[in-house]
């Protein structure tokens, strides 16, 4: 029964109580609001007449605009549920007071004030209630449940009408007012209960409206002006209001013509009550339709055709309506107008608006609703009433123009909705891959200038370390105009920091610049620091600025820097030498270099490798490769750097050795240099091994590896495709291959996507099914470890699927999408799902949705009956056997462990068999089990 109710209302386990409380809250305050509104309007008309209505509407509009400013201010300080609580408390107090005042002092101006107050109460409660809902729901939940909340609101409103209808004549207005007050007091109790029992979903964004961070009005206005989606959404809502008022006037005009008592005949008698009776019947039918549609159908329609398509429905209905109305002024068209306003606008459009609100920039979310409900809607009312008064004869043409513009706006809204969601996701990503130079690219000229000025200011920071950092950053900007400033600041550095600066300069864009040579020469002349002088000396040697004759004696010195400078000079310099002299110098240099490389001293080897980095020939590669397996990490790093510098496309025979070294060392710097070397070799036959060894790489190493393979180009496509399809490989490798393929050959990835995804769904189902059922099948065994393994396996497959879809989709920021789908924040996850829906095909998405959705596991299992049939026959030992062949080492070790623990027959033989196929890590584990 519970399941049936959940299915009908679209509520998942655990959400029921929260959804019920919010529905109850909506019903209660809507009941109160309906009673107060209806009674205040009827009392006003009875006591003061309709002449005061325009004045009241004017005051209401002004008051709402003021209230919106107040609410925006309050939302910066308090949460949305507290705001709703405040509004409810204020309304309840005033309503109670008003009830007594009206009863004891029935003056005309009191009725007027009461009418204004009840209208204000209704509008502000709507705005605050929905703002509060946004705090507790993400987009995907909203798609399922908001329809029910809307229906609850209509239900409460209808109940209010029914109560007035049934009891007004018998008990009069005072008890009804008291009932409305009681309803509001109960609503206060409900919202307090909700705030206490339910956890809100805060946005991760630090400037989330509900997270009590501080913001200025200017930043809100700035955010609004820079969000096309927010602007279009508000315009859309404004047009809804314009259309609503215009259509109301039009159908009332038509109906009053049709139900004119003067046209009464015997066959068709028309009295003064005919129109209200007819209207009452139609409104009642529409209200029932609204409740049913909101409760049961809205979410299904959204799920089936998508939110962006649903938004076209009201626009098309209005366009059809006015196309008809321009030609025929009939009862059918008038009723259609009534349905369009009270049905389509109040259910579909209101619900759509509530969902679209989730895509608004985080800074504006919450406030946008208040701004809309309390400012733009009254403004719409004001504009439409002015136009309708001024051009009373062209109301239908005005409606047609509005309907046409409305449909154009709907298309714009569709377009910007997906973009806006992606922008929200993008705002959450940290761009570690960007260097300062890249940051400048994303900024406008003014901001670029500001950043450079800030860096310049840091050149005079009191901390030397910071000055050096600023110099390094400015060097990476690669602007010649900045070099002079950097070098001038360099004067104020100590000798040690000057050495660091020289290293930065050496690897910078300015390494060959004459002003640098001049400055270094100046430092050389003025400095007494020996280490600095040696470094500058070596720098000059590397740039070919020393004369061979002058450094010859340095070859015999014990100073390593001087020896290195001499070797480099002899090797490189051609100044005033005969060919035979140059040849002799080189022979000497090579011999000296060999001596350095053969040395037992680590520093000498490192210096030898540094000298080789200056070489452009791959002649020394044989020698240098051997240092990749040296016992010292410093030598290994320098060797890798050297290889990365001198290697070229002809060195593919060394790729295997580099790959082996890459696998054997976990040092970050070493790995990056090795990857760089492999990138320069560019041998596509190494791609498989490159990707296969990246399983345990760090994030920056993986990024480096991806770029290396990407640089190899389209020749890697076949091997990448085979990696993606090979499910015996670790998922992380396949992910990397997919990501790269998505960049270099997206059509190829898309062509294979369906097969890959469907195979993965099957794999995910396997993990999911047993992750949830195996313990139930074997209650006497403690299978917690196995269950955890299966569930993490499931998550890993899901990751893979998401990555593939992101990579194959047209989203450039698919990394972001994957990150967002993994976010612990439900709102971020929901937005990512929405983006995914827009990018992958409907067939794949509908297959995948049950896996990504937060629905209960029992219903997920039932989603694919053929898979259930396929997998449900496995027992525990069969399952463990299956895990033996998994691509994940974790699965294999857990399988071996449990087989041993549960004494599965022949587990030892099975383990020995496995050892033949597995790597060293598994062997250690297997030996431990066998020895036990």
């Amino acid at each position, binding site marked *: 029964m519970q399941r049936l109710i959940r299915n009908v209302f679209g509520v998942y386990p655990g959400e029921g109580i929260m959804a019920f409380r919010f529905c109850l809250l909506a019903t209660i305050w809507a009941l109160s609001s309906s009673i107060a509104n209806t009674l205040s309007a009827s009392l006003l008309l009875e006591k003061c007449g309709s002449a005061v209505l325009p004045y009241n509407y004017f005051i209401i509009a002004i008051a709402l605009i003021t209230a919106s400013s107040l609410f925006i201010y309050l939302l910066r300080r308090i949460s949305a549920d507290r705001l709703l609580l405040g509004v409810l408390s204020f309304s309840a107090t005033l309503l109670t007071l008003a009830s007594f005042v009206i009863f004891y002092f029935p003056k005309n101006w009191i009725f007027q004030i009461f009418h204004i107050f009840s209208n204000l109460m209704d509008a502000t409660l709507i705005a605050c209630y929905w703002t509060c809902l946004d705090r507790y729901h993400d987009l995907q939940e909203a798609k399922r449940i908001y329809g029910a909340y809307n229906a609850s609101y209509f239900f409460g409103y209808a109940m209010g009408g029914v109560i007035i209808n049934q009891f007004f004549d018998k008990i009069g207005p005072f008890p009804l007012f008291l009932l409305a007050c009681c309803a509001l007091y109960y609503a206060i109790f409900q919202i307090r209960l909700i705030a206490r029992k339910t956890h809100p979903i805060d946005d*991760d964004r*630090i400037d989330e409206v509900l997270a009590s*961070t*501080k913001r200025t009005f200017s930043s809100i206005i700035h955010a609004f002006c820079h969000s096309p989606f927010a602007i279009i959404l508000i315009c859309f809502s404004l047009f809804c209001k314009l259309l609503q008022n215009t259509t109301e006037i039009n159908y009332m005009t038509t109906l009053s013509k049709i139900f004119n008592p003067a046209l009464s005949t015997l066959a068709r008698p028309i009295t003064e009550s005919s129109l209200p009776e007819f209207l009452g019947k139609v409104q009642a039918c529409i209200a029932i339709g609204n409740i049913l549609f909101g409760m049961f159908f809205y979410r299904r329609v959204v799920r089936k055709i998508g939110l962006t398509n649903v938004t076209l429905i009201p626009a098309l209905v209005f366009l059809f309506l006015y196309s008809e109305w321009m030609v025929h002024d009939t009862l059918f068209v008038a009723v259609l107008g009534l349905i369009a306003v009270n049905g389509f606008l109040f259910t579909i459009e209101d619900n759509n608006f509530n969902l679209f609100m989730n895509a608004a920039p985080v800074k504006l979310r919450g406030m946008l609703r208040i701004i809309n409900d309390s400012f733009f809607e009254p403004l719409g009312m004001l504009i439409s009433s002015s136009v309708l008064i001024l051009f009373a004869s062209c109301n239908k043409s005005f409606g047609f123009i509005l309907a046409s513009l409305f449909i154009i706006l709907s298309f714009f809204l569709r377009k910007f909705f997906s973009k806006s969601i992606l922008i929200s996701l993008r705002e959450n990503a940290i761009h570690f891959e960007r260097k*300062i130079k890249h940051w400048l690219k994303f900024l406008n000229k003014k901001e670029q200038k500001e950043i450079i000025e800030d860096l310049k200011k840091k050149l005079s920071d009191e901390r030397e370390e910071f000055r050096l*950092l600023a110099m390094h950053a400015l060097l990476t900007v690669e602007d010649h105009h900045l070099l002079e400033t950097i070098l001038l600041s360099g004067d104020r550095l100590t000798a040690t920091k000057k050495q660091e600066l020289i290293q930065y300069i050496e690897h910078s864009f300015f390494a060959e610049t004459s002003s640098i040579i001049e400055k270094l020469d100046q430092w050389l002349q003025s400095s007494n620091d020996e280490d600095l002088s040696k470094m500058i000396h070596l720098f000059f040697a590397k740039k070919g600025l020393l004369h061979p004759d002058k450094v010859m004696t340095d070859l015999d010195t014990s100073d390593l820097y001087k020896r290195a400078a001499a070797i480099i000079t002899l090797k490189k310099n051609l100044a005033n030498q005969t060919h035979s002299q140059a040849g002799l110098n080189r022979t000497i240099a090579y011999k000296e270099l060999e001596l350095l490389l053969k040395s037992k001293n680590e520093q000498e080897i490192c210096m030898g490798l540094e000298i080789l980095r200056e070489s452009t020939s791959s002649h020394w590669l044989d020698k240098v490769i051997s240092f990749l397996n040296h016992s010292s990490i410093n030598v290994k790093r320098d060797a890798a750097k050297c290889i990365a510098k001198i290697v070229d496309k002809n060195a593919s025979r060394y790729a295997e050795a580099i790959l082996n070294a890459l696998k054997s060392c976990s040092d970050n710097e070493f790995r990056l240099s090795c990857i760089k070397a492999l990138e320069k070799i560019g041998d596509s036959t190494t791609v498989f091994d490159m990707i296969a060894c990246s399983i345990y790489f760090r*994030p920056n190493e993986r990024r480096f590896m991806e770029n290396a393979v990407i640089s190899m180009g389209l020749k890697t496509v076949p091997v990448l495709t085979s990696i993606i399809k090979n499910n015996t490989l670790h998922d992380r490798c396949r992910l990397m291959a997919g990501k790269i393929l998505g960049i270099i050959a997206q059509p190829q990835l898309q062509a294979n996507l369906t097969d890959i995804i469907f195979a993965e769904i099957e794999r995910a189902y396997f993990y999911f099914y047993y992750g949830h059922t195996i313990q139930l099948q074997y209650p006497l065994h403690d299978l917690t470890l196995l269950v955890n393994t299966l569930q993490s396996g499931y998550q890993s497959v899901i990751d893979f699927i998401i990555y593939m879809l992101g990579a194959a989709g047209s989203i450039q920021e698919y990394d972001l999408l994957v990150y967002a789908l993994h976010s612990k924040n439900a709102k971020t996850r929901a937005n990512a799902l929405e983006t995914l829906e827009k990018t992958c095909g409907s067939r794949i998405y509908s297959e995948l949705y049950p896996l990504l959705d937060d629905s209960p596991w029992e219903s997920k299992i039932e989603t694919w009956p053929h898979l259930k049939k396929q997998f449900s026959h496995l027992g525990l030992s069969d399952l463990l056997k299956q895990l033996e062949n998994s691509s994940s080492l974790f699965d294999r070790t857990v399988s071996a462990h449990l087989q041993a623990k549960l004494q599965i027959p022949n587990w030892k033989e099975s383990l020995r068999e496995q050892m033949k196929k597995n790597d060293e890590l598994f062997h250690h584990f297997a030996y431990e089990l066998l020895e036990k």
Partner: protein
Amino acid sequence: MKELSLIEKAFFLKKTRLFQEVELDLLVAIADKLNQDFYDANEKVFDIYHRANRMYLIAKGTVNLFDKDQNLICELSTNDFFGDEPLFGEREHHYSAICKNETILLTLAKSHLMTIISECPVVAIALLECYAQNFSHRFQKKS
């Protein structure tokens, strides 16, 4: 008070214990995600038992932390950070934070902190060092 620029924020991070080992390029990326808040003297940053979803770095000023009985736990000043502990356990703040004087705080969202930790293990190590200090202190108290 003026909003700190991206570079100023990055250099500020470099001064903090948590990020001092991180490269400038990465710091700029992190700085991009920092939000700046201005607080008056005696203004509350958060209350005890409030759900935590961000950590706070003091760019300028002094912040006092109080326990549930309003006893001063400690006084933090520029370059210190607070509010990070509950982020690792979906927990609430176990102290309240009140600015002693005019203060500028830079805040970092929980999800961003998690991403930074996975990208820069040095940040995780810095955090562990801070926690280890507190842990040994607590251990001494108990024994």
